């Protein structure tokens, strides 16, 4: 009897200690939906990866809240009058987390490493023809053609500077033990669970607000929601509209991000979507507004262009308003031999993606198509299926991580990439190619804007996509977070101030 009481007292005491021990106020716990294989800037596969990297890495430029590139480690930028030579001077005194200096050599190292390793993001620096280290703090970049988007490329999360010494020492293991110069330094990575970063007190400007940030991977949205509501986390990313409402009712703050441009890429190399009338019919057949209202429960706005609003040069060109009559008429006029559409959809990659795909499939059937809907849950398997190009429509979300339209347009619509990433739909329009090249190499903003407007109009009319919507995602935040910035395109946040 006595022993029993002793045990229960001990238990109570234990419980009390647990309950009364304050959570260390200096640490911040952020819930991310998905893990990723590496923190190496050569390859970025998801916004979640970018978010963690943003806290560890520093770059020459960074983005302001409107995705315009602004100087970060850069002190002076000097562009030659022909627009081909960029003399970039770095701030003095910045160091990597291992104590080695951030210098011109490190900039050169980063760009060359990116090219040598050959990830998908090497297009960022494709325009650079020569890199010269002039002195310790000055690097001179030469481009083959004028390349105004170089600032955006250097601000891109993939352009994170890294310690050459650490990279050489770690070799293949660098990606899981990154060493850079950002406000937080990498501490540990517990696979399948979390990444911990510590404050970098040697940061060249004011150090981070928190002693430690814990990025925890919680794939299930309901678990993220409950952890947030129970105070077990300070920030939770990518809640759905219903979860966001419930979290808000608990008095927590909700940040909504106007995120990716969600669309279905149509295949120009497979009947019947090789016919422009069929592509337009598909666009008229689907009621985007109702899908946004009923399936997404309001979490989106109709897409109005191939470029989205977070990209420079965006013009709201228009929408294909739901018109089943017109869709049927166009389909009748085109009278394709096959009316079967193969529709590929991911599952749980974008908000309610497979639900939206089912609704789209229903609308297309109403318009007179047969739809072969294939939902592929794991992302790698989905991309494999896309690469086989045996589709008429496949769903994709595009963020525009450089803030400049050049990269997005070139990788999605350039005919040289027909059949490859990300022009799997094999769009091949020589006149668009020419316009893109022209806009991508001029420094004259007015002229660039005019060309991009024209490109957006032409692409809208040619219907290379089933235009859908710009999805809204929700982030829950509690009052421990004072500073939080949002980057719309890649859909993530960072919790340190912008450079002044």
């Amino acid at each position: 009897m006595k022993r029993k009481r002793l045990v229960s007292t001990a238990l109570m005491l234990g419980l009390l200690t647990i309950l009364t021990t304050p959570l260390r106020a200096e640490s911040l716990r952020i819930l991310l939906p998905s893990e990723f294989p590496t923190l190496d800037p050569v390859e970025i596969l998801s916004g979640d990866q970018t978010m963690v990297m943003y806290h560890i890495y520093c770059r020459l430029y960074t983005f302001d809240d409107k995705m315009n590139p602004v100087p970060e480690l850069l002190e002076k930028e000097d562009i030659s009058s022909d627009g081909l030579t960029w003399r970039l001077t770095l701030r003095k005194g910045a160091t990597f987390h291992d104590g080695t200096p951030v210098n011109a050599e490190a900039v050169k190292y980063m760009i060359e490493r990116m090219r040598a390793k050959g990830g998908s993001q090497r297009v960022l620096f494709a325009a650079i023809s020569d890199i010269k280290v002039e002195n310790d703090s000055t690097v001179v970049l030469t481009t083959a053609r004028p390349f105004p988007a170089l600032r955006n490329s250097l601000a891109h999360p993939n352009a994170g500077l890294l310690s050459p010494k650490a990279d050489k020492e770690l070799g293949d293991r660098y990606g899981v033990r990154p060493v850079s110069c950002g406000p937080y330094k990498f501490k540990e990575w517990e696979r399948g669970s979390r990444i911990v970063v510590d404050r970098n007190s040697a940061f060249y400007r004011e150090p981070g607000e928190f002693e430690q940030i814990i990025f925890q991977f919680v794939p299930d949205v309901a678990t993220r929601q409950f952890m947030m509501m129970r105070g077990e986390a300070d920030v939770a990313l990518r809640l759905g509209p219903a979860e966001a409402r419930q979290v808000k009712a608990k008095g927590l703050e909700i940040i909504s991000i106007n995120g990716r441009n969600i669309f279905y890429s149509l295949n120009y190399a497979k009947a019947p979507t090789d016919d422009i009338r069929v592509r337009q019919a598909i666009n008229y057949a689907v009621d985007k507004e109702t899908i946004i209202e009923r399936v997404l429960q309001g979490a989106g706005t109709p897409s109005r262009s191939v470029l989205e609003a977070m990209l420079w040069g965006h013009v709201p060109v228009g929408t294909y308003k739901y018109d089943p009559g017109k869709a049927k008429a166009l389909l009748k006029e085109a009278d394709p031999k096959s009316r079967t559409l193969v529709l590929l959809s991911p599952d749980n990659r974008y908000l309610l993606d497979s639900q939206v795909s089912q609704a789209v499939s229903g609308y297309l059937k109403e318009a007179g198509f047969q739809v072969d809907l294939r939902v592929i849950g794991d992302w790698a398997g989905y991309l494999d299926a896309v690469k086989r190009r045996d589709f008429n429509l496949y769903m994709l979300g595009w963020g525009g991580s450089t803030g400049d339209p050049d990269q997005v347009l070139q990788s999605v619509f350039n005919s040289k990439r027909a059949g490859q990433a990300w022009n799997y739909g094999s769009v091949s329009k020589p006149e668009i190619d020419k316009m893109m090249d022209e806009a991508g190499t001029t420094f004259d903003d007015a002229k660039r804007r005019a060309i991009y407007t024209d490109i957006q109009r032409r692409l809208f009319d040619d219907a290379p996509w089933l235009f859908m919507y710009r999805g809204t995602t929700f982030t829950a935040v509690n009052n421990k977070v004072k500073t939080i910035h949002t980057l719309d395109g890649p859909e993530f946040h960072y919790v340190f101030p912008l450079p002044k």
Partner: protein
Amino acid sequence: MPGLRTELPLTGKIGLGVLLALLLAATFGPYFTPDAYDQNLARSLEGPSAAHWLGTDQIGRDLLARILVGARYSLLIGIGATFFGVVIGVSIGAVSGYFGGIFEAAAMRFMDLLMVFPGILIALMVIAVAGDGLGNVIFAVGLRAVPVFARLAQTSTHSIRAREYIVAARAAGASGIRILWSHVLPALLNSLVVLAALQVATSILIGATLSFLGVGLSPEMPEWGAMLNSGRRYIFQHWPLVVFPGLAIMITVLGINLLGDGLRSAADRRRDRGVALA
């Protein structure tokens, strides 16, 4: 099976009733409801009404219709997979049990190998290799049942093989296949029926688990597991999406298990009296 009605315990009769009702509903029910694939976004997530008895799902399809059509898939997967398991498993087990030797050792070790993996894992692997589709799901779930039946058939055949009437049949010149077919198999039937009934329930559960994980069938198809998965997001907003498919799975599996248990006790009672069920 004459006399089964009186032999079956009450719970078994309830199970049988549930199964029959389910078969009827699955066969004829969808003729009396709206089309299970017809969507109407304007009427999504509605509660029960005269037009939609159980309400509508997230894209405005009739929930009752989907559950009834779903019953077809579930029963098809459950019975189809078990049938596959019985045919292949019993063949392997009975033949290897009767003839013995190196073939028996090899076949049974291979069955052991299959048993090492959890059923759901085998099914996932098979679908990863063979691809999606109803036929592949039935094959994948059925493969898991093969060693279960093979084991049963092998051990029973082993013990029957030495019986006098088998020895007599062999002495009279009956071929191995003939003995297996007309003497060994009938003797196995009792335990096979019981095991098969229980395996149908397990197969339905595994089939539903697969589609809950988003593997095997297209999400447009109203499979109960897939319905649970897509309804999961709406559990606080619109509970019928999760509760009704869940209940459907529960009632079906419970009913079949009750029937299987009932068959077992009926068989036990008969064996105690020395009568074969068949």
